[in-house]
């Protein structure tokens, strides 16, 4: 995987469970951002031409390349809508979270 993976946070029981410094390893992710969304990007793979404009413009980096097209990591997408707004083929549309 080219992105840091989500891991389960276990409450430390002993001092030795805590990191030596003020942080854990690089890329230590324990919470998702999916709950921030009010709108959600939906990708139409047929319409996607793989221009990667959305991939380059996503502030979260949640759009990744997949078979010459793109896919979305919904765990960390905040639903800002930059991808849908910038798509020249309208292959990404924003829908209200909870619909469909």
């Amino acid at each position, binding site marked *: 995987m080219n*992105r*840091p993976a989500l891991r389960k946070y276990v409450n430390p029981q002993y001092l030795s469970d805590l990191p030596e410094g003020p*942080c854990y390893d690089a890329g*230590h992710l324990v919470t998702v951002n999916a709950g921030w969304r009010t709108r959600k990007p939906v990708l139409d793979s047929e319409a996607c031409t793989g221009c990667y404009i959305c991939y380059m413009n996503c*502030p979260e980096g949640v759009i990744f390349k997949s078979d010459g097209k793109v896919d979305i990591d919904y765990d960390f997408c*905040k639903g*800002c809508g930059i991808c849908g*707004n910038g798509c020249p083929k309208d292959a990404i549309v*924003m829908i209200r979270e909870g619909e469909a």
Partner: protein
Amino acid sequence: MSVVNKVRINARTITDKEFFYGHKACAGCGGSLAVRHILKVLGERTFTVLPAGCMSAVGFNFPQLCFDSNAIISTFAGTASMMSGIAAGARALGLKDYHVVGIAGDGGTADIGLQALSGAIDRREKVIYICYDNEAYMNTGIQKSGLTPFGARTTTTPAGENIKGTVTTKKNMFEIVAAHGIDYAATASVGYIQDFINKIQKASEVDGTSYIHVYAPCPTGWGTETDVTIDLAKEVVDTGLWVLAEYEQGEFRLNRNPKSFAPVENYVRRQGRFKHLEDEDIAAIVHARDAKWEQIRNSWKLK
């Protein structure tokens, strides 16, 4: 722009790895997009220094750590001095093939960290300093900084009957830095991401100090929709309010010299922070822009 001995990085050749992931920046944040690309272009062997500001606040939330390469928070004023220390340490250890980058906001660069930055440029440290400019102290609640533009409403420069928001103009950080005789300086915008990537790549190959000033819209502070960040960052360049340029070997070079400018009115009217401005205020902004462009076209190298 020529990039030597390296594959030119673009949408197809850029690494798939994400080094700034799962961060807690507001939706549509221009600054986090800048950080994402800086780290992607510079790669895994990069030491990143972040002063107090949005990007350190959203990247390090114990136990979450959103930087997937080596990153550290510095004092607000000490971005460039900590970078100098890291560069000295890396030299002492004999490290090869690495980059030292500092990513500070507009307040951390133009106001609080200016002295340390000036010192680092003076010593010609081999570091890359990048200022992501969202035009106010956004992390602490949208206070005016030295890079807040004329007319913008912030919490410390509210718009009222007598004073219409910020009465001062943006410091010209690009030319301040260039006046040091720096090895490489450039301005960029997240709206022109390929241009920004080219400049990061170029900065990474400079033997000396480099500085990039990247324009990064902030939906929260500017009162805009979250999905227009890129549009605004493009429009500010097209209107001529933000200039894409480079400085090296003692010369300024303009990267984009548009024949005509996009209307400033459209750019200003879509932002909450400029809502109170009247036509005469916009005319003043246009006037200042035209004066600046006249000076640029008379004295800089035009591409």
